[in-house]
Each structure stands twice: as structure tokens, then as C-alpha cells.
């Protein structure tokens, strides 16, 4: 019996191990790169694998394939540039359906002198997926910058039907508007009306828009030149020649691809250091994705599936996925010379088939690579689609599934919260937006919550306020007659008359009547050094409260990420330096004040600043983005008023004129900056000396003892 049990145990263990081993093996081998998403601080963070490398198809004999598209039969259409052909390939049956070559083709051979066309370098393909009177289902458009007409090189666009017969050829538009620009089409996309959107090599004016007869309609959209501040100043001052010598590039980033999805939305990708490399255009060409986050900036291709989910390919081998609103989902892939499935050399084309598989072509490699979505990716897409179709309950269920896979997914928290916002579950929405760090939409749901509260309690609030006001007046009246509060008043007066409290409270008078108060501060027995010190401490506390303690919507840096030491040091050092420098500057400029007086004057000017900090902090807990202006006003009035007081205090204490005061403040600020620079130099030098001695001793120790 015991042996039998033992054998059973061993068998169970063995089985367990083998299955375990198998499982890990599968996971380890299939994914070759990590998938990255964003965390709530906007940093990349590793997440579950969204796609696993699928098929690697090597035998097609591709040479520098540049573009890929999916046709109506879920077949791949590949622009095989190096072989001067376009290939239609069916990955399911694993057959080459059609090979399109155009060599000395005459459309009307019966006519004499009919031009013959040759396709040499197809770099862009587009397949029509929706039939209309202008274009047929499955029509293929091919962009070729180096095509030949009767042996002479021309940039051409070929229009073929779905069985590969050449229907039309479009060359350079002869409109005078197009002018003398070259026409070297690299990519092409076509909308329902047969209007072509063409990207021409070396054209920085934008996407060329051509009618279905090949007439030039205009430049659809253009990229802006992005210059650094220094370059902008140089551009403003220098002549064109000087700019050319400096090598400042005034040509805007180029468009690399244009895509029209099944709903007629026009998308484009650009390559270059700028912020809006992914664009979704409206009919006028304006970018509707004005300020979305874009993970990589050397995009080579863009593809949008039927649900509007956006896939981008980056030259550096990154594949990025975005929602239909342009919200970044995740990115994966990398560049490497090793021939491993999922690594790229020069990722040049991307397309997604009806089964959700990503197909990529790499102009450095000669094979096709597919990526299969994982459950994780599919759930996310499904949740997004359900949200767009207003199935909010289902979307919430799916997002919760994603959350159970990845508790930290910002995307999921954001997604779930948006659904809650739609079904008016504002509290839940606010909670999830808070986790996701989405302050704008949190503000939105908080606004709703506050509004609901107001609706429920407004009458009570009004009633209570009214009763309190009534109560106050009644008390005031009774007090006037019978002096019931006389002892309280006496007590308050007594505390206010304690020297130090009186000294501190004097700052209120200063802020109201600065001119006289600074004089009293100086000449009469008002205020004290201890009082000034206490005021500065209160100032610091309220400033700290403002920096670290605002409501979620306005607290942009988390309290844990704040460097408390540097705040304290900065506050003390800056104020100390300002006072000392102000004394040094004014003492050689006929100033009458002493350092102590400057110190007192500065401290006693801080009351508005304290009020501004405290009130805006308190207000930030009940305010939303709608009221951000009020918050700023409170804070800036505090700062501005305090600044005016400091100004007046210097003017009054030193007995300066307006101009002299400005001059002395500017000099003081300059002096502070110089001292800070010197201090940082000294600190760096001391560190150098330290490290020198450290090295020295280490070396000595090593030489002596070994």
C-alpha cells in the first residue's frame, strides 16, 4: 500500500513538473521582446505580452519589401520593391495568389504611339475595401517613384482592378498650382470618391491630393517646422545664407505614410522630431489628434483597423498601438541584426488582417513576419469597441478582466472610469481616474459629484446660512444692549495685547497700510525680531502646505515624489540670501536701513502670501478645472501683494525713490544669482577635492597592502 501510494505521489509530481516545464518553455520561446505601457507618471512600464511572434514566411523571395496591405479576401498585398513586383499572398492556404508585374504594358495596343508602362520600384500599395461608383472592391493602387513610360523615368500611380488588370495610370498633375515640384509617389491612399492622397518623395509641402481623374486638388495637410528656441532666435536674426551655413534645417518633417480606413478617416504618419507624428485629419486636413502621447517618432507606416484602432510601425522596429481616440495603449518590438522572429532591421510596413494578426514587412529582411494577439490584447480591444458601441456594462466587465490580469494598467483604469462616467457612476469613475492619474477627467467626474451634492443640499445650505446670519445679528443686537460678550472681548483683547502675539498680528496692519506701518516698524515700538521669525515660520508652513497639500486635481507631483529637503533648503537659503544681499547692495547706495530692519520689513510683508497659499490650498479641495482661474487668482494676488509690500518696505526703510528701489532690487537679485553660482562652483570643487583624496587613499591602500 505504501509503495503504491509512493508511486502515485511520484507520478503526480512528475506530471506536475513536466506540465510546468512545458508551460514555461512555451512562454519563454514565443515572446522575444517586452511590451511597454505607460504608468500614471507617464513613464514606460513593462506590461503583459500583447502580441506573440507568429508565422515567419521566408520562401517568397522578397527583396526590400516596402509596404503591405490587406485585400477584401484577407490576403496580403506586398509591395516587393526590389523585385519590381506586387505580390498577393494568402497566408491561410499558404499560396501566392497573384504576382503583378507591369512591363512595357500598353493599355491600348491598337492605337499607334500608345505609351508603354513599366513598374520598377513599387513602394506603396493600397487596396480599396469599400465599393463605390468611382472605385471597385479590391482595386489596387500602386505608387512607383521610378516607373518608366517608354523607357523614360516618371513617377506614376497605377490603378488596377482586383484581378490585376491595369485600369488607369496617373502621372504628375499638370496644374499650374502644382508648379515645378517633382512627382515621386512613395505611398498612396484612396477614398470612396476615388480621390488619391499621395506622398511624394522630397515634397515638404504636404500630402498631395488628386481627384479621380488625376487633377491636382491641393496640398491636404502639412507638417510644421519645429525649431528650438535658439534656432528660432537665429532664424529671426540671421540671413538665409548664414542659416544655410549653420545647417539649420528649415524643411519640415516628412510624411511617411497615409492611410484611409473603412470609415473614410484619413490618417498619416511622419518621421522626425516633432510632437504630432500621428495625425487623424478632418476633411480640411486639420489634425484632430492635436495633443496625444506618441511613443516613438521615426514612424514609417500606419494602419487603422475596422474598429479604428491604430497600429504604427517605427523604423527602429517598434510597433505601437493606439485607441481610436489616439490614446496610447502599448508598444513592443525592437531593432536587432540577429535574425530572430520579432526583431527588425528596418521596419517598413504594417497591416492587420481580419483575424487581428499583425503582418509586417522589413525592407532589411526578406521575409514576412506576423504577430498574433494574446488574450490580453483582445480583451482590451473588445473593451474599447464595446465602449464605442455604448455597451458600457460589457465594457466595464472586460476592463475588469484586464485589471484582474494587470492591476496597474493605467489604460484599464482609464477605460473603466470612462464607462462609469457614461453610466453616471461618478464616484466609481472618480476613484478609477484617480488611480490612473487622469486629472482632467477626474475633474469632470468630481464636478458631477459636487453638482449632485449641491442639488441635494442646496436648500439646507441656504437655510443654515440664513439662520446663522440671523443668529449673528440677534447676538450682535443682544450684545449691544446687555454686553453679554464683554468678558470674551476682554479675553481676546488681553491675548492680543500679549507682546509677541501683538507683534505677529501686526503683519495684518502692514498689509493694509504699508506706508505708515513700515515707518512704525522702524521708528516706533511695533513688531520685533522674534515676531518676524515666527511670521517666516508660518510663511514656510503655509508654502509647504501649498506645494504638497493641494487637492488631487491640482497636485501635479505626488507628495511622495517631493524632495522636502531641497524645498526647506531652497526656502531658507533664498530668503536669507535675499536679505543679506539686499543689505549689502543698499549699504553702498545711500541706504539708511540696517540688516535687522530689512529682515523685519521682509517678514512683515508676508501676510498676503500666507493668505494666498492657505486659501488656494483649501479652495483646491472643492474646485475643479473649471475654477482653476479662481485658484490662480487667489494665489497670484497673494504673491503680487506681498511683492508690492516688499518693494514698499525697501523703499520706506532705505528712504529710496521709486527708481532707486527698482535698481536696488534688480541688483539684489543679480547678486543672489552670482552668489548661488559661486556656491555651486565651490561645492563642485570641494567634491572634486574629496574624490581626489578618496582615490588617492584607495590607491595608496591598494599599493601598500597588496
Amino acid at each position, binding site marked *: 500500500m505504501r509503495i503504491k501510494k509512493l508511486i502515485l505521489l511520484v507520478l503526480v509530481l512528475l506530471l506536475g513538473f513536466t506540465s510546468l516545464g512545458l508551460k514555461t518553455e512555451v512562454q519563454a520561446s514565443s515572446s522575444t521582446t517586452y511590451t511597454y505601457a505607460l504608468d500614471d507618471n507617464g513613464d514606460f512600464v513593462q506590461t503583459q505580452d500583447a502580441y506573440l511572434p507568429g508565422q515567419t514566411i521566408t520562401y517568397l523571395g522578397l527583396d526590400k519589401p516596402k509596404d503591405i496591405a490587406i485585400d477584401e479576401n484577407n490576403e496580403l498585398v506586398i509591395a516587393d520593391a526590389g523585385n519590381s513586383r506586387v505580390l498577393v499572398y494568402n497566408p491561410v492556404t499558404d499560396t501566392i495568389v497573384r504576382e503583378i508585374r507591369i512591363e512595357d504594358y500598353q493599355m491600348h495596343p491598337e492605337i499607334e504611339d500608345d505609351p508603354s508602362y513599366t513598374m520598377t520600384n513599387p513602394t506603396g500599395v493600397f487596396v480599396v475595401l469599400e465599393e463605390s461608383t468611382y472605385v471597385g472592391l479590391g482595386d489596387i493602387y500602386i505608387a512607383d517613384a521610378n516607373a518608366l513610360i517608354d523607357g523614360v523615368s516618371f513617377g506614376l500611380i497605377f490603378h488596377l482592378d482586383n484581378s490585376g488588370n491595369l485600369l488607369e495610370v496617373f502621372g504628375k498633375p499638370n496644374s499650374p498650382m502644382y508648379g515645378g515640384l517633382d512627382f515621386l509617389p512613395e505611398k498612396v491612399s484612396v477614398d470612396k470618391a476615388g480621390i488619391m492622397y499621395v506622398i511624394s518623395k522630397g515634397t515638404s509641402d504636404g500630402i498631395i491630393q488628386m481627384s479621380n481623374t488625376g487633377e491636382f486638388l491641393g496640398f491636404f495637410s*502639412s507638417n*510644421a517646422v519645429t525649431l528650438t528656441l535658439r534656432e528660432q532666435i537665429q*532664424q529671426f536674426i540671421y540671413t538665409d545664407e548664414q542659416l544655410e551655413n549653420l545647417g539649420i534645417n528649415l524643411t519640415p518633417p516628412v510624411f511617411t505614410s497615409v492611410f484611409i480606413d473603412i470609415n473614410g478617416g484619413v490618417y498619416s504618419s511622419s518621421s522626425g522630431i516633432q510632437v504630432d507624428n500621428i495625425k487623424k485629419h478632418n476633411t480640411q486636413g*486639420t489634425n484632430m489628434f492635436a495633443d496625444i502621447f506618441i511613443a516613438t517618432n521615426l514612424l514609417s507606416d500606419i494602419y487603422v483597423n475596422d474598429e479604428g484602432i491604430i497600429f504604427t510601425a517605427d523604423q527602429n522596429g517598434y510597433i505601437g498601438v493606439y485607441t481610436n481616440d489616439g490614446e496610447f495603449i502599448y508598444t513592443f518590438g525592437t531593432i536587432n541584426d540577429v535574425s530572430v522572429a520579432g526583431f527588425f532591421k528596418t521596419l517598413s510596413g504594417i497591416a492587420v488582417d481580419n483575424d487581428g494578426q499583425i503582418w509586417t514587412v522589413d525592407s532589411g529582411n526578406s521575409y514576412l513576419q506576423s504577430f498574433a494577439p494574446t488574450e490580453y490584447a483582445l480583451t482590451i480591444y473588445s473593451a474599447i469597441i464595446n465602449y464605442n458601441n455604448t455597451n458600457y456594462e460589457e465594457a466595464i466587465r472586460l476592463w475588469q478582466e484586464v485589471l484582474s490580469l494587470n492591476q496597474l494598467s493605467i489604460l484599464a483604469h482609464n477605460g473603466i472610469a470612462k464607462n462609469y462616467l457614461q453610466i453616471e457612476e461618478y464616484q466609481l469613475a472618480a476613484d478609477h481616474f484617480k488611480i490612473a492619474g487622469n486629472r482632467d477627467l477626474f475633474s469632470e467626474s468630481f*464636478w458631477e459629484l459636487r*453638482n449632485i451634492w*449641491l*442639488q441635494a443640499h*442646496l*436648500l439646507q445650505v441656504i437655510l443654515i446660512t440664513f439662520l446663522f446670519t440671523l443668529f449673528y445679528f440677534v447676538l450682535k443686537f443682544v450684545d449691544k444692549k446687555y454686553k453679554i460678550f464683554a468678558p470674551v472681548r476682554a479675553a481676546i483683547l488681553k491675548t492680543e495685547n500679549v507682546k509677541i502675539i501683538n507683534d505677529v498680528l501686526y503683519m495684518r496692519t502692514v498689509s493694509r497700510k504699508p*506706508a505708515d506701518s513700515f515707518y512704525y516698524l522702524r521708528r516706533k515700538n511695533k513688531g520685533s525680531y522674534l515676531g518676524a521669525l515666527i511670521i517666516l515660520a508660518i510663511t514656510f508652513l503655509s508654502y509647504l502646505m501649498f506645494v504638497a497639500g493641494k487637492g488631487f486635481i491640482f497636485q501635479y507631483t505626488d507628495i511622495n515624489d517631493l524632495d522636502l529637503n531641497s524645498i526647506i533648503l531652497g526656502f531658507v537659503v533664498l530668503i536669507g540670501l535675499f536679505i543679506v544681499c539686499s543689505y549689502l547692495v543698499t549699504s553702498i547706495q545711500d541706504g539708511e536701513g540696517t540688516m535687522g530692519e530689512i529682515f523685519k520689513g521682509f517678514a512683515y510683508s508676508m501676510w498676503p502670501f500666507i493668505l494666498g497659499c492657505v486659501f488656494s490650498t483649501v479652495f483646491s479641495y472643492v474646485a475643479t478645472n*473649471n*475654477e482653476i*482661474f*479662481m485658484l490662480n*487668482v487667489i494665489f497670484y494676488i497673494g504673491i503680487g501683494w506681498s511683492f508690492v509690500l516688499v518693494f514698499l518696505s525697501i*523703499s520706506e526703510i532705505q*528712504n529710496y*525713490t*521709486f*527708481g532707486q528701489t527698482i535698481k536696488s532690487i534688480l541688483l539684489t537679485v543679480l547678486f543672489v544669482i552670482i552668489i548661488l553660482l559661486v556656491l555651486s562652483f565651490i561645492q563642485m570643487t570641494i567634491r572634486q577635492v574629496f574624490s581626489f583624496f578618496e582615490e588617492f587613499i584607495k590607491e595608496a591602500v591598494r599599493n601598500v597592502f597588496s
Partner: protein
Amino acid sequence: MNAKSLKRKEQLSKVMSDSLDHLRRLKTDKNSTILLLAPYVLLFTMFIIIPVVVAITLSFTYFNVIEMPKFAEFYGFYNYIMILTQDEVFLRYVLPNTLKYAIITGPGGYLLSFIMAWMLSQIQATPRKILALALYTPSMLGGVFIGVIFRTIFSGDKSGYINSILLNMGLISTPLDFLQSGDYLMNIMIFVTLWSSMGIGFLSMLAGILNVNKEMYEAAYIDGIKNRLQEIFYITIPSMKPQMLFGAVMAIVGAFNAGGIGVALAGSNPTPQYAGQLIVNHIDDYGFIRYEMGYAAALSVILLAIILLFSRVAYMLFGEKD
């Protein structure tokens, strides 16, 4: 005593009794007081008190101009409750917009008026008169005319002056839609209002500054003030407190009552994305587009309350006290 002095005494007592009589008559004759006050009271009642009372009464009703006003629900407070809890446009756009607009253009315009008035008071009479007229011109032209001028300047296509300049300098690639996009409208409204803020308050302050006794400055210099800033603080402002108060109240009322400029610039009420919607526009919208007079009246009462509140603040700052 001779006859002459007797006669004199008689005369004196007659005069005295006459004047006493007169005093007595005055005390009893209240009609003359009423008569003297009547024109003012009548006009004030007719043009101020009755409209205000009617507005407040209407604010408790539902009134669509055609039927008789109906007393509203919730003891008449229906309109107010709707405004403060249900009117999303009001809470989300109109109230923050109005506060922003008023807080910047009120004190901003006030400060500008004072600075301009003070600067003008420093120069000779002839150029001062010309410049004062020039500065006062925008207030005489009115919102619509200013709207026309600035619509040309801020026009949203290439032909707009600002857009044309920015395009020529290469700072933008496509014309900015200043007036129809909602992103810029509020700031443009504030700019235009500040530009045209030299109104009646400015004139009163100019008069106030010019009326300050010059000898006071001389005396102050003898007493030890050293510069212009001190001159303003110690002499000018204290001597013209009434004008300062008048200017402040006018600035506050003007800032909250302004509404034409946004509609004049954007060309429509409501303004695009409610970007330039102020309370007055909202009242206009409800009163004269939707004909919900009760609701509009309630909005006006709220506006009145806000203006009163801010005027109190102005009185606290500039009123005659201590």
C-alpha cells in the same frame, strides 16, 4: 427813553414775531417739503424702484410674455433652484467666465484708468485735452463698433491683420481661428475691454487729480517726501477718495454688466463653445431668445447680488472711514 428808541423797539419786536411766525409756519407746513422732494422721488420710483421690484417679483414666476406670469413652484424659488443646480451652462461656463472677465477687466481697467489719468495730469493742458478725448473715444463708440474694428484685426483667415503678421513672420503655418474657436475668445474680449476701459471713471479720476491743491504737494515736499510715488500715496489718492470710489464702483458695475463685446466679436449668441458667455449674454439668451422672462429675471437678481457684494468690497477699500 425817547420816542425814537421806542419806535425802534417796536420795530424789532415786530420783526422778531414775524420770523417766529415764519418758523412756526415752516414747522407745520409739511406740504412744501413733499413738493420739493416730489420730482426726485417720483422719477426715482418710476425709473429705479418699480423696475427693480418688478424684476424681483418676476424672478419668482414663470413668465413667457404672452400669458400672465404664473407663480413658480417651490414657494416661488423654482428659478433660483434651477439656476444653481440644473443649469450646467451657467455653472460650467457663464459663472466662471463672468468672474474671470470681471476680476481682470474690473481692477485692470481701474488701474489703467488711474495710471492714464495720472500721466495725463502731468502734461500741459492742450495735449492733455486732445489725449483725454482720444482715450475716451472707445467708450463713446460702444461695443458694436469696437467689435467691428477688432473683428477685422482678429479675423480667423489669412486676411486678418494678426494672422497675416504671424504668417509672414513664420510663427504659424495656418491662420488661427481667433474668434470662432473658443480658445482665444475670452482673452481677446479681455484685451479689447482693457483697451476701451477709459470710460466715465477715467474722466472723474482725471478731474479728481487735477483738483488736488498744488500747495499740498509743496507742503509735503517741505515735510520730507522725496518722490512721485510718495506723492501719489500720501497726497493724490487721499485727496481724491470720492473720485476713486466712484471709479471703482463704475468699474465693477461695468465689468459685470458688459456682455455685448463677446457677442459682437464672435457674431453669435451663444458664443462658440460658451467661451465668451457672460451673465448678461445668458440673460439675453433666456430673456429675448427663449422668452423665459422669469428665469432671466432671476438671473438678473443674482447678477445684482454679485454686483452689490463686490461694491461692498470697493466701499470697504475706498469708502470714507477712520
